[in-house]
């Protein structure tokens, strides 16, 4: 029987590779028959929302845009949720960033550290923190 891994992620996708590592680790755990959860905390909550594309000309060089797009993780987070992962965000850290109330990516759940996170721990065998 597989184990349940919960990752506390405190980094967004652009500042370093910790978020990519967290998502990759969760994907690998699921591939190996385990369960995985991600709690988006601090800057990690920047991953929670759907994108709001700008309607006009971007003014970003193509190679820079490709570089930035390659680091986005929204589709992979939604994919994790589709494979049974609980992806929960801390609404307080969203509030601090003015993003609370924006639409979530499919599969992302609104939560908090006091209840949603501790509930995840009750069902977890392994807890890892990632984010500088």
């Amino acid at each position: 029987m597989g184990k349940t891994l919960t990752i506390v992620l405190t980094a967004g996708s652009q500042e370093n590779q910790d978020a990519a590592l967290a998502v990759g680790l969760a994907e690998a755990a699921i591939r190996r028959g385990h369960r995985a959860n991600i709690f988006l905390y601090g800057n990690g909550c920047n991953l929670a929302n759907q994108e709001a594309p700008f309607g006009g000309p971007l003014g970003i060089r193509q190679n820079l845009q490709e570089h930035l797009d390659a680091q986005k993780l929204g589709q992979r987070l939604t994919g994790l949720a589709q494979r049974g992962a609980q992806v929960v965000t801390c609404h307080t850290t969203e509030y601090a960033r003015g993003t609370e109330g924006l639409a979530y990516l499919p599969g992302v759940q609104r939560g908090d550290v006091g209840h949603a996170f501790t509930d995840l721990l009750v069902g977890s065998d392994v807890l890892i923190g990632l984010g500088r």
Partner: protein
Amino acid sequence: MIESVCAVLTRPRGEEKSVLGLRLAWATHMAGLGTSLLCLEDGVYNLLPGPGYPVEMLLNFIKESGRTLAVASSLAQRNLDPSQLVEGVEVIEEAEVAGLMEDHQAALFF
């Protein structure tokens, strides 16, 4: 089931990371999980008295019997004396940190 957590603060007061660690320690402690709050490196600055939410959170954690520790060498390197810290902080040697980690099922660094 994760039943114990050691929240390790390495960042000083004024950075969001330290508040995230305090909030998480408070949440797990109040949820009944065995919780310790370990402050080392610049994290020891969180243990100084002062105004505002972070210190209130720390004092509440200690008041509710949350175990709060500081590493002696981190204090000494910053010319801080244990007598300057808020009441209720246990000062340990660096060599004792490994044992503290062994006492918990998980450690999260902030």
